[in-house]
């Protein structure tokens, strides 16, 4: 640095700052500067990919029909210890916030689990939120689930607010995220 004279240094610094300012202005006009919520992808800032699954009790639920509600999509399996550990906290949060427009879709990765084991676990704890059965693994593939549990916090407008891979999620984490969803924070 000392090999430059002060005049050369000032010219260089000025040129760098000017070029940077021009690039900032050019960048403002470039397309795709921010995540496009119109594109479905299992990532924060994108539209949550839509799916339809049967529940454990035989009814059918489509994610897009829950538009206007804050949704937690939680992919789990009965053999997965962290999944089992976080479910009671999920139930506590569901009990507290369901009346405010929050719901949980607990998607059982049935292709990696057994439907009867899943049902036994749900009955043992008496979970009241919908348990969806991903029999052929389509939703796990759609959401690129590489670890269980995987949780997708979805805003009332259908946009994914946050993705949490792994667990168990602490009750405080669930509570702060659900409150943010209900406030519509991005």
């Amino acid at each position, binding site marked *: *640095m000392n090999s430059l004279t002060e005049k050369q*240094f000032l010219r260089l610094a000025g040129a760098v700052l000017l070029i940077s300012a021009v*690039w900032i202005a050019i960048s403002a006009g470039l*397309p795709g500067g921010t995540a496009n919520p119109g594109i479905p992808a299992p990532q924060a800032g994108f539209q949550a990919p839509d799916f339809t699954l049967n529940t454990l009790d035989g009814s059918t639920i489509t994610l897009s029909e829950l538009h206007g509600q804050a949704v937690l999509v939680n992919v789990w399996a009965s053999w997965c210890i962290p999944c089992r550990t976080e479910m009671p906290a999920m139930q506590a949060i569901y009990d507290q916030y369901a009346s405010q427009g929050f719901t949980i879709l607990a998607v059982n990765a049935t292709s990696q689990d057994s439907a009867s084991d899943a049902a036994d676990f749900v009955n043992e704890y008496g979970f009241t939120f919908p348990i969806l059965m991903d029999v052929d693994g389509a939703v796990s593939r759609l959401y690129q689930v590489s*670890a269980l549990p995987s949780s997708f916090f979805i805003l009332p407008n259908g946009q994914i607010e946050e993705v949490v*891979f792994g667990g168990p999620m602490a*009750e*405080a984490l669930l509570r702060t995220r659900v409150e943010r969803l209900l406030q519509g924070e991005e």
Partner: protein
Amino acid sequence: MFPYLNLFGAAIAVSPLVILVAIWLGAALAERTSDRHGIPSETLYNLIFIALLAFILGGRLSYAAQYPSAFIADPVSLVSRNLGLFDPVGGAAIGLVAAAIYGQRKQLALWPTLDALTPALAVLLTAIPLANLASGEAFGAPSSLPWAIELWGQSRHPVQIYEALAAGLILWWLWPGRAKSQDPAGTNFLLFVAANAFSRLFFEGLRGSSALTVLNLRAAQLAAWVILAAALYGLLYLRRKSKTALRTRSI
């Protein structure tokens, strides 16, 4: 994108693992070369350790302070392993304060200490884009270039790879021992800051996940421009100060 490694039945998050390895490598490199800046390696190790510890504890406490009701309802969450219960900005502020207090107690000179820490920071900034690549975050804008990668439903600039390469280049440029001995203390650190601010400013323009401000301007670019200007001014200040000192000495 490979957010998780499945090892022996356990899912291990790649992104924090990359950051942890980078901290370890960076700290080891900084310790090996700290003597050149007149900072004992043990003191530098303690400084890094205290700053990290304060960052981790401070980040959790700062988060809890923002959402007290959630932690009052479930106090055990204070010691949860969930990375989501963390405020990185608050943690960084507390980490900096802790490092400053330790540095003052040990009477560490500011500029040589920052120079000594530069290798650790440079390794860390090389690893952050790789961690983002693993998790799929900080992704690029849509692109039809031949080297574009398929991510989140579109072909995109592999901006995390661009950023990692640029940070690697900066690390190589400022590799310990490469700096000229006549450069005043602090030059290496400010060059590092200026180069990384310029790199961030440039590659932010190719990101697809930028936070936008007025007139569609990208917030990170504006912040990087201010940091770049401050670093360049700092370099000018150090040059003038060192020349004045030389002149005084020769008189």
